[in-house]
């Protein structure tokens, strides 16, 4: 049964919401069951042409020459498109919100950076003729060394994947090699913690595998406009991207979509729209560009791989006193949306827990893999999974029931989060309590009585004296200890200089596999009373809270 705990959000909204718990029919359902829903490919056009691309067989190679003469003469071929035919053959998706540098060509010209990168597009009367002509394009390559591991890619001297970012890392606000979070002093806290646990978590890339593959049909319309039937999840995002790449006024593009045959994040990259529209412009005919299933699975962007290294300091009574996380996001060869996922990751690093000392570092790294993109909570899912596995291990380490361990460390209303924002409407404690009740998981009396609404704030609202990094950039000015110096991550990167070394995590030499988690025996209700909920916070005077304004997101440029 669904319960809506309005008491927890009483001050949030006063309207009377009354839909939860009732059945409501979706407006698009009738179309789905009658087969009338029109997906992008469900549109008939006379004289429809088909577009297919030549893809790189190499993970990394210089292109020496491209010979399309045989393909141009092949039966049914109407047009061959090359990189120089694309008006603006370099783009990055988030440039529409002024975030990041253009780094990805629509069709590769001088170099390929991942296996499957498009180089030439062929437009023909039929799909079969387009595919046959693709095989006739002769590209000669000089293969280059490759890098597939995020930490290898950050080492000095590593192969440069994407020349726009010669350090193999995305440059935040043109200055910073990664995203940082600093709160308190983790090193000092590790020294006084009863236990320190360091673990490494590796996520694989995941393909969205929607049943409908990516695709677009574009056709000339009246008034010198083009109609574009698109699979895009963000239709206007795709419109803006296409307009930019083709240097067209956006009002010449009439995008139709919204019916997405499964997206999950895999249809935000405008993989097919720009070329289909360019094809329609160059041929004056409707052009359909649809990825085949193999193309979709191998070369359309997946959720990228992530690596999280988490080091926690915990006291015998269960309080987590320090958390240090280093995260590496594998963007593949181009930025697409990974830079944004990293920002989201940093926002989740402490988890929903009040930890007085937090240090986070997250890198968006370029490798010779297929460029990654959004997928269902990307940036968050991997780090949250890692944190929660780590929480189970910590609970085991100190011998506390994992549910109680979470209640003990959960943030409460009024607590200061490591991002220097005060926690409001926290409800983790209540969630854990409800889950425990539903699955008959015995909780101690103290844990059952705990509440997000009490026990927070006070000393837990303080911003601790924060260790600054080498340049003194993070933390309040009055807590800066070191004079600013030029160091990686802080100073503007000199153009085309040997890049500064990025500190790279080295796994501890003898890495012990974590012991299997025990089965937690049912506990009598009073077995493990929780200690007082307030973790000690270094007693710094709570200054006027001004940190939040400095929090950078992708939508505000750093001053």
């Amino acid at each position, binding site marked *: 049964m669904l319960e809506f705990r309005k008491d927890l959000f009483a001050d949030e909204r006063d309207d009377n919401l009354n839909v939860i718990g009732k059945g409501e029919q979706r407006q698009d359902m009738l179309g789905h*069951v009658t087969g009338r829903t029109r997906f992008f490919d469900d549109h008939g056009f006379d004289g429809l042409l088909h577009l297919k691309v030549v893809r790189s067989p190499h993970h990394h190679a210089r292109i020496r020459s491209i010979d399309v003469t045989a393909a141009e003469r092949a039966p049914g071929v109407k047009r061959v498109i090359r990189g120089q035919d694309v008006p603006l053959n370099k783009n990055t998706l988030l440039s529409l919100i002024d975030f990041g540098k253009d780094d990805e060509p629509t069709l590769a010209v001088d170099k390929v950076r991942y296996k499957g990168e498009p180089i030439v597009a062929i437009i023909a009367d039929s799909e079969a003729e387009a595919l046959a002509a693709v095989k006739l394009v002769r590209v000669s390559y000089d293969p280059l060394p490759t890098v597939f591991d995020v930490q290898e890619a950050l080492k000095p001297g590593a192969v440069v994947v994407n020349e726009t970012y010669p350090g193999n890392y995305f440059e935040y606000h043109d200055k910073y090699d990664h995203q940082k979070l600093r709160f308190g002093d983790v090193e000092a806290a590790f020294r006084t913690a009863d236990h320190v646990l360091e673990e490494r978590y590796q996520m694989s890339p995941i393909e969205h595998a929607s049943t409908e593959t990516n695709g677009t049909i574009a056709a000339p319309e009246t008034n010198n406009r083009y109609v574009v039937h698109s699979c895009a999840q963000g239709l206007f995002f795709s419109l803006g991207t296409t307009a930019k790449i083709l240097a067209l006024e956006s009002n010449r593009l009439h995008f139709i979509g919204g019916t997405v*045959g499964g997206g999950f994040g895999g249809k935000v990259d405008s993989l097919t729209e720009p070329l289909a529209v360019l094809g329609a412009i160059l041929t004056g005919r409707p052009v359909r560009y649809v990825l085949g*299933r193999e193309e979709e699975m191998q070369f359309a962007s997946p959720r990228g791989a992530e690596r999280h290294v988490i080091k926690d300091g915990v006291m015998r009574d269960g309080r987590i006193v320090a958390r240090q996380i280093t995260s590496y996001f594998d963007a593949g060869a181009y930025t697409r949306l990974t830079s944004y996922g990293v920002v989201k990751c940093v926002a989740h690093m402490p988890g929903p827990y009040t930890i007085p000392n937090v240090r986070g570092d997250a890198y968006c790294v370029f490798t010779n893999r297929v460029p990654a993109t959004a997928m269902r909570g990307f940036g968050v899912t991997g780090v949250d999974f890692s944190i929660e596995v780590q929480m189970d291990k910590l609970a085991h380490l100190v011998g506390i029931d994992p549910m109680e361990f979470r209640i003990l460390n959960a943030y409460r209303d009024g607590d200061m989060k490591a991002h220097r924002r005060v926690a409001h409407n926290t409800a983790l404690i209540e969630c854990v309590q409800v889950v425990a009740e539903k699955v008959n998981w015995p909780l101690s009396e103290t844990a059952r009585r705990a509440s997000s609404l009490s026990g927070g704030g006070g000393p837990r609202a303080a911003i601790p004296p924060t260790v600054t990094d080498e340049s003194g950039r993070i933390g309040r000015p009055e807590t800066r200890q070191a004079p600013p110096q030029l160091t990686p991550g802080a100073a503007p990167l000199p153009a085309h200089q040997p890049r500064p070394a990025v500190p790279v995590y080295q796994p501890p030499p003898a890495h012990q596999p974590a012991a299997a988690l025990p089965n937690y025996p049912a506990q009598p209700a009073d077995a493990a009373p929780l200690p007082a909920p307030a973790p000690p916070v270094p007693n710094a005077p709570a200054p006027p809270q001004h940190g939040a304004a400095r929090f950078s997101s992708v939508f505000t440029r750093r001053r």
Partner: protein
Amino acid sequence: MARMPVQFRLNGSDRAVFVEPAETLLGTIRRGLGDFAPKFGCGQGTCGVCTVLVDGEPRLGCLTLSVTCEGRSIETASGLADGPTLHPLQAAFMEHFAAQCGFCTPGMLMAAKALLDRNPNPTRVEVVEAIAGNVCRCTGYEPIINAILAAAQQRGARRA
């Protein structure tokens, strides 16, 4: 190669069309005849979104040559409803939230119809088997299975 004439019945109407010798039934139905209900998901027989009925039997449109359908009766999801009246499977899919993006739905419905037409009272296992060739990436299948079972029950109740 020369195009070849083919005649078959599509959702109750006689249709005649010229096809390439290697043209698939899916291509003919969609781009040749304009019925876009059956979908293309893989073109290699792995996803089932192209499922149509040929003489009542479920067939993968992407692996069936149009020239082999001469004189046959083809059914797609477009022909399921009787005018404004939904087929019990369609009503049950709506009721049980058995579609999210809806891309697998036309194929699912046809696989389910083939099952109920020959086995009006299937077990859960039989339903699972009947849609085993149909991939759905959104729903997790449970609502689809429940909808098919509910449609069977409802039809049974009507017959009784």
